[in-house]
C-alpha cells in the first residue's frame, strides 16, 4: 500500500491537521519536538491500533478534549482506501472503506490487505523511526550480527519473540550453570539419592565382608570341631590305653615272671597225684606220730593222779575192802529208805486210824464176843419191832427236830428284827409255831423211845455201857467193829513200826560205821563229807575214781598201744619215704620239697600262663604294641591331660567363634531388615522419569527455539541473495563504493573491500557496521515489501554518519523509493532542486 494522505483529528500536538504524502518519497523536515515522531506514530497507530492504557508506548492522546485519532488515505492494488480510527476500546474504533468500490471493510479485510505483515513486522521492518536505527548504534558487534541474521526472516518479530519465549521457558527449566532451575534442582536431588545409594552400597560391601567373615568363621568352627573330634578320638584311644595299662603291666610282669622261671622236667598230674598221695601218707603218718607223741606227752603232762587215787593207792587194802562193801552199803541205804518209807506209811495209817478211832479202846476177846452177840440180839429184836424202825427214824427225827428248832429260832428272830408290821407279827407267829412243833416232836420221839421192849433195852444198855468203856460212844454201833479192826490194825502197825525202827537203827549204824571208815580215809573236803553222808554221792565219787583208774588203765593201755602204733607208724613212714625217694629219683628231684616247689612253680607258671593268655586275649596285639611305647602309666596320663588341655582350649576358641558368628549373624539380620535400598532405587527411577520429562519439556522449548531459528535462518539464507544484492547496492552508495561486496561466507557476513580484502562483520569499524546495518535494514524492508507493500518510515538515518554526503543520501533515498514508499523524517535537509518541492514538507516547531 502507499499512503497518500493523513488527516489528524487529534494526535499529540496535531489537531485537525492534514498532511499529504508523496507516493514515492516524502521528506518531512522539522526541528526536534516538531512532531516528526508523532506523525510516524500516527501512521503506525492508525494502521495497527492505539496502544492500550496499560501499554508502555506513548499514546499521544491530545491534551485538549479533541477527538483522538484520524484518517489515513492509502492506495493499494489500484484501489483507494480510507482508514479511520478514533478513540475506543481495543485499539480504537476502526473503519475502513474502499473508496473505489465504496465497500465497507472490516479489520479482517484490512489484515488480508497487508498480510503477512503485522504490527510487529511493521514495527520491526518498516518502522525505522523512533531511534530504531540509533539502537543499532548502541548494539555490540555480536548483537548487531545477530540482528542482521534474524532480520531476514519474515515475521521475524513474532518469531523472535517466540524464540525469546522458548529460550525463556528453557532457561526456566534448565541452565548449564544454574542453581534454581527444576532440572538442576532435581539433578541435585538425584545426586543425593545416588549418594545415599552409594552409601547403601558401602553397606553391601560391609555386608559382603560380613558374609566373608561368616564364611571364615564357619570354616574355622568346622575345622576346630574336626580337630576336637579328632582329639576326642585320640583321647578315647589314650583312655583305652590307660585303662588297659594295668592289664598290660600285669601281663608284662607275668611274662617276665614266666620268663624268669626255669622249669625243670615237667611233672604231670599223675605224678603229682602220686606224690600227693605219698606226701599225704607221709604227713599223715608223721602227724600220727606226732599225735602219738603229743598224746604221750599229754599224758605225762596232763594226767597227774588225783588225791583220791593217791589215797587209794596208799590204802589199797582198806580201800578195796570198803569198795567191796559199797554195794552192800548201798543196798542197806536203799533198805533203810524202804524201811523208812514203810514206817512212814504205817505212821500215816496209824495217824488216820488214830483219828478214826479217837479214844476207843479195843475189845478184848470176851468183850468182842459179847458185843457180837449183843448186836445180833439187837438186830433181831429190832426186826421184830417195827418200832425199832422208828428208832432209825428217831435219829432222823432228832435231826428233824433240830431243824425245827433252828428254823423256829431263825424265823422268829428274823421276823422280830427284819420284818415290820403285819409281817413281823406273822413271822414271829410262824417262828413260835416251829419251835412248838419241834418240842412236840421231840417229846414224841422220847415217848417212842420209852416204849422199847426190855430185852432190847437191856441189850442196848449193855451196848451203851460197853461203848462207854471202850470209848465208842461217838461211834455208831455199826461202826464198832470197824473201829475195832482199826484198833487192831493200830496195834499191829505199832508193832510193825517198832520193828521197822529197830531195823532202821541197825542199818543206820552200819552205815555210820562205813561212813566213818571212809571219813577216816578221805581228806576233809566238804564234798567228801557230803559224799560220806550220802552214799550215792560216795558211789559217784568211787565211780569217778573207778573211772579214773579205769581210764588210767585205759590210758596205760593206750600208751602202750601208742608206742606200738608209733613204732608201726615209723615203720610205715620209712616204707613210704623210701617209695618217695624212688619216686623223686625217677623224677630227677633231690627232695620232695624240691619236687613240690617245682610243681608249685609249674602250677604257678601254668596259672601265670593262663592269666597271660587271658590278658593277651583281653589286650589285642595292637594295643600291646602301642602300650610298649610307654614306660609307665604316667606317660599315657600325661598325654591324656595334654589332649584334654588342647581340647578345652579349642572348645574355648570355638565358643568365641560361635559368639562371633552370632554377632555377625545379628548384624546381617539388621542389614536384611533394612529395605531402604529398594525404596531409594525406585525413588531414583521415578526421579529420573521426572527429570526426563522436564528435560523433554526443556528440549522441546530449546528445539522449538532452534527450529524457528533454523527456519528463519533458512528463510534468511534463501532471501539472502536478494537482500544481499540490495544491501550491496545501498552499502556501496553509503560507503561511496569503498566496498565491493557483501556476502555470507561460512555463515558469516563478510565484506569485501575494493582492494579485495575481506572483513568479518566483527572486524568492521563501528561506523561501517552501522552503515551496513542501515543498508541491510533498507534492503530487508524492500525485500519484504515485495510481499506486502507498506511504507518505510525512516528517521534521520544519516545524521550520525559523518562522512555521508547529502547527495549520497538523496541518491539512496531515491533508490529506495523505486521499490518502496519512503517517508523520511529529518531535522535538516538541504536539498537540491532535483527533488520536487511537494516531496518535502516542513514542520514548524509546535
Amino acid at each position: 500500500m502507499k499512503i497518500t494522505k493523513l488527516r489528524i483529528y487529534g494526535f499529540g500536538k496535531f489537531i485537525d491537521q492534514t498532511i499529504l504524502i508523496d507516493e514515492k518519497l516524502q521528506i518531512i523536515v522539522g526541528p526536534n519536538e516538531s512532531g516528526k515522531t508523532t506523525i510516524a506514530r500516527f501512521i503506525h497507530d492508525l494502521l495497527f491500533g492505539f496502544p492500550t492504557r496499560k501499554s508502555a508506548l506513548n499514546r499521544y492522546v491530545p491534551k485538549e478534549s479533541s477527538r483522538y485519532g484520524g484518517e489515513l488515505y492509502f492506495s493499494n492494488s489500484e484501489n483507494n482506501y480510507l482508514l479511520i480510527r478514533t478513540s475506543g476500546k481495543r485499539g480504537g474504533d476502526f473503519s475502513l472503506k474502499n473508496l473505489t468500490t465504496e465497500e465497507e471493510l472490516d479489520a479482517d479485510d484490512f489484515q488480508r490487505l497487508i498480510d503477512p505483515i503485522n504490527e510487529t513486522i511493521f514495527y520491526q521492518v518498516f518502522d525505522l523511526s523512533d531511534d530504531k536505527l540509533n539502537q543499532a548504534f548502541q548494539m555490540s558487534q555480536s548483537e548487531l550480527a545477530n540482528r542482521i541474521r534474524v532480520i531476514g526472516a519474515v515475521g521475524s518479530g513474532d518469531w523472535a519473540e517466540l524464540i525469546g519465549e522458548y529460550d525463556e521457558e528453557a532457561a526456566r527449566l534448565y541452565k548449564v550453570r544454574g542453581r534454581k532451575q527444576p532440572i538442576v534442582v532435581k539433578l541435585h536431588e538425584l545426586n543425593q539419592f545416588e549418594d545415599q545409594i552409594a552409601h547403601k552400597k558401602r553397606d553391601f560391601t560391609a555386608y559382603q565382608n560380613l558374609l566373608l567373615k561368616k564364611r571364615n568363621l564357619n570354616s574355622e568352627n568346622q575345622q576346630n570341631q574336626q580337630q576336637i573330634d579328632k582329639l576326642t578320638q585320640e583321647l578315647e584311644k589314650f583312655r583305652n590305653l590307660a585303662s588297659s595299662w594295668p592289664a598290660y603291666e600285669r601281663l608284662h610282669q607275668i611274662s617276665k615272671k614266666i620268663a624268669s622261671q626255669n622249669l625243670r622236667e615237667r611233672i604231670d598230674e599223675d605224678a603229682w597225684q602220686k606224690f600227693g598221695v605219698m606226701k599225704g601218707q607221709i604227713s599223715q603218718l608223721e602227724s600220727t606220730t606226732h599225735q602219738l607223741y603229743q598224746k604221750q606227752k599229754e599224758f605225762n603232762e596232763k594226767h597227774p593222779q588225783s588225791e583220791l587215787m593217791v589215797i587209794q593207792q596208799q590204802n589199797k587194802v582198806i580201800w578195796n575192802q570198803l569198795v567191796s562193801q559199797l554195794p552192800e552199803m548201798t543196798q542197806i541205804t536203799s533198805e533203810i529208805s524202804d524201811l523208812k518209807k514203810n514206817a512212814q506209811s504205817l505212821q500215816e495209817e496209824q495217824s488216820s486210824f488214830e483219828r478214826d478211832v479217837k479214844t476207843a479202846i479195843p475189845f478184848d476177846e470176851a468183850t468182842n464176843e459179847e458185843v457180837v452177840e449183843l448186836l445180833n440180839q439187837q438186830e433181831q429184836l429190832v426186826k421184830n419191832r417195827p418200832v425199832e424202825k422208828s428208832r432209825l427214824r428217831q435219829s432222823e427225827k432228832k435231826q428233824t427236830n433240830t431243824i425245827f428248832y433252828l428254823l423256829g429260832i431263825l424265823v422268829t428272830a428274823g421276823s422280830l428284827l427284819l420284818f415290820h408290821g403285819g409281817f413281823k407279827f406273822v413271822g414271829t407267829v410262824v417262828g413260835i409255831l416251829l419251835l412248838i412243833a419241834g418240842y412236840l416232836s421231840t417229846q414224841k420221839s422220847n415217848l417212842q423211845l420209852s416204849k422199847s421192849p426190855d430185852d432190847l433195852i437191856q441189850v442196848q444198855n449193855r451196848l451203851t455201857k460197853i461203848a462207854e468203856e471202850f470209848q465208842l460212844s461217838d461211834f455208831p454201833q455199826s461202826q464198832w467193829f470197824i473201829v475195832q479192826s482199826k484198833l487192831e490194825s493200830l496195834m499191829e502197825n505199832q508193832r510193825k513200826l517198832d520193828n521197822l525202827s529197830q531195823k532202821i537203827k541197825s542199818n543206820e549204824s552200819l552205815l555210820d560205821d562205813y561212813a566213818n571208815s571212809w571219813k577216816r580215809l578221805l581228806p576233809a573236803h566238804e564234798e567228801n563229807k557230803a559224799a560220806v553222808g550220802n552214799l550215792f554221792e560216795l558211789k559217784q565219787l568211787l565211780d569217778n575214781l573207778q573211772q579214773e583208774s579205769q581210764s588210767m588203765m585205759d590210758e596205760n593201755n593206750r600208751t602202750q598201744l601208742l608206742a606200738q602204733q608209733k613204732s608201726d607208724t615209723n615203720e610205715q613212714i620209712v616204707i613210704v619215704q623210701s617209695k618217695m625217694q624212688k619216686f623223686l629219683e625217677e623224677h630227677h628231684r633231690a627232695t620232695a620239697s624240691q619236687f613240690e616247689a617245682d610243681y608249685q612253680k609249674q602250677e604257678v607258671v601254668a596259672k601265670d600262663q593262663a592269666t597271660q593268655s587271658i590278658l593277651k586275649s583281653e589286650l589285642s596285639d595292637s594295643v600291646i604294641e602301642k602300650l610298649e611305647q610307654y614306660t609307665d602309666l604316667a606317660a599315657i596320663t600325661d598325654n591324656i591331660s595334654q589332649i584334654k588341655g588342647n581340647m578345652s582350649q579349642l572348645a574355648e576358641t570355638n565358643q568365641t567363634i560361635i559368639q562371633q558368628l552370632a554377632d555377625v549373624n545379628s548384624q546381617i539380620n539388621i542389614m536384611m531388615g533394612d529395605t531402604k535400598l529398594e525404596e531409594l532405587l525406585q525413588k531414583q527411577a521415578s526421579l529420573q522419569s521426572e527429570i526426563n520429562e522436564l528435560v523433554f519439556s526443556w528440549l522441546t522449548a530449546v528445539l522449538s527455539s532452534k527450529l524457528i531459528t533454523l527456519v528463519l535462518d533458512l528463510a534468511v539464507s534463501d532471501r539472502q541473495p536478494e537482500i544481499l544484492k540490495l544491501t550491496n547496492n545501498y552499502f556501496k552508495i553509503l560507503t561511496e563504493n569503498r566496498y565491493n561486496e557483501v556476502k555470507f561466507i561460512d555463515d558469516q557476513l563478510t565484506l569485501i573491500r575494493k582492494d579485495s580484502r575481506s572483513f568479518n562483520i566483527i572486524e568492521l569499524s563501528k561506523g561501517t557496521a552501522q552503515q551496513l546495518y542501515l543498508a541491510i535494514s533498507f534492503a530487508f524492508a524492500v525485500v519484504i515489501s515485495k510481499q506486502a507493500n507498506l511504507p518505510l518510515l525512516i528517521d534521520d538515518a544519516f545524521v550520525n554518519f559523518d562522512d555521508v554526503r547529502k547527495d549520497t543520501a538523496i541518491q539512496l533515498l531515491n533508490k529506495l523509493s523505486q521499490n518502496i514508499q519512503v517517508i523520511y523524517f529529518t531535522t535538516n535537509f538541504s536539498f537540491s532542486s532535483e527533488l520536487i518541492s511537494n516531496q518535502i514538507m516542513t514542520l514548524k516547531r509546535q
Partner: protein
Amino acid sequence: MKFIHAADLHLDSPFLGLKTAPASIWKLIYSSSERATINLIDRAISEQVDFILLVGDLFDRETQNIQAQLFLRNQLERLDEVDIPVFISWGNHDYSSESRPEIDWPSNVTVFDSQVSSHKIQLKSGEQVAISGFSYRTRWLNEDLISNFVPDKNAEFNIAMLHGGEKTGEIRNNHYAPFTVGELTAAGFDYWALGHIHQFQKLASSVPIYYSGTIQGRNHNEDGTKGALLVNLTHTETKVNFIETDVITWQKISISVDEKSSIAEILELMADKIKENISDKLALISVEIENQVGNTEETAIQNGTLLERLQDMFSRQTSYWPYEIKEVIQPNERVFSEVDNKFWQASEAQLFTDDVITETAGTLFSNAFIANHFHDQKVQSELKQAVLRNIKQKAGHKGGQSE
C-alpha cells in the same frame, strides 16, 4: 521330565517411567518382583517339577541389594525342602566376579561358572539329564560360546542354558554372547533355555529354543503378560506352556476425542476406558489421545494438570494407575503460513537428529539415564511432535491475526 525355564527376574530393578503414585500403589510396586518370584516358586512346587533353570539377570550386580539376594535365597530354600534342584547361570546384569564373596546358596542350587560346563542329575524316573551353561564374568560378552556347548552322550536328555542375544549386523555390535538360531539347532541339545530378552519368544520349531521373558514387566515397553515356561520334555515331544507370574501389567489405552471435548469429558472417557479392563493385577496405564484437542485442554495436557486430575480419580484404589497421558496426533497444519514449506521441512530434517539433540542437551547427557532415554528413536519422534505442537499452539496464540 518336567521343568521350569525362567529368566531375567531383575529382582532389584525399579519400575521405570513412573513419577508419582500413591503410597499404596508404591507398596504394590515395591513388592511386585518378590510376589512374582513367589508365584514362580509356588508353581514349581505345586507342579513338582524335576528342576528349575534360572537363565541370568536375576539381579543387577551394580545395585548390590542385600535383601533381593537373601529373598531369592529363601525362595530357593523352599525348593531345597522339597528336593527340587535349581540351576543358575549369571547374565550380563548379574555377572559374577569370583573375587566377591557370594551368598551361601542352599545345597540344591548349582551355579555355573564362567567356563561352559555341564552338570548331570538323575530324575526320580531314573533318567539322567545333563544341563549345560555358563555365567557372565563381566557386563558384556562378545564371544560366540556356542561351540563350547557339547551334549553329554551318557545322559538321556541334554538341556542348555544361554543368556544372550541373536547376532545382528556386525559382530562388534553384539555384546551379549551372540548366537544364531542355526548354531543352536545344530548343537545337538534337546532344549535351549534362553534369557536376556524380556519377552516370551519361540525362536525355532525343529529344536525347542525359547526365551522365557521376564517374570514381571518393569517399564512400558514390557507390556503384556509376563511369566515363565513350564516344559514337559519327553523323547517324542516337547510341550511348552507359558505360566503367568506377574502381578503388575503395563497397558496402553487410546481414547478418541475432539476439539470440543472439555476436560471433564476427556477425563470421564479416560476413566471409563481404564476401568473396562478387569483383572486382579495392578494395571499401570499409559493413556493416548488420538485427536487434536482444544487449546485449554492442550495446555492441561502439556502442563500435567490433566494427568493430575486423572490420577486423583484413581488415588484411592490399587487396581489401576494412569501414569502418563500422551498425544499421538501429528500436527497436520503448517504452522508458518508465510514461510515456504521447503524451509520448514529442511529445518525439521536438520534439527531432529540424534547429533543435534545430543549437542543441544550438552552436559545433561552426561547423565546416562537421560542420554539413554533421548537416544531412543521413539522419544525423539515424540520430541519432534511436541515441538511442532508447541510452536503451533504458541504461534496460534501469538499471531492471532496472521492465522
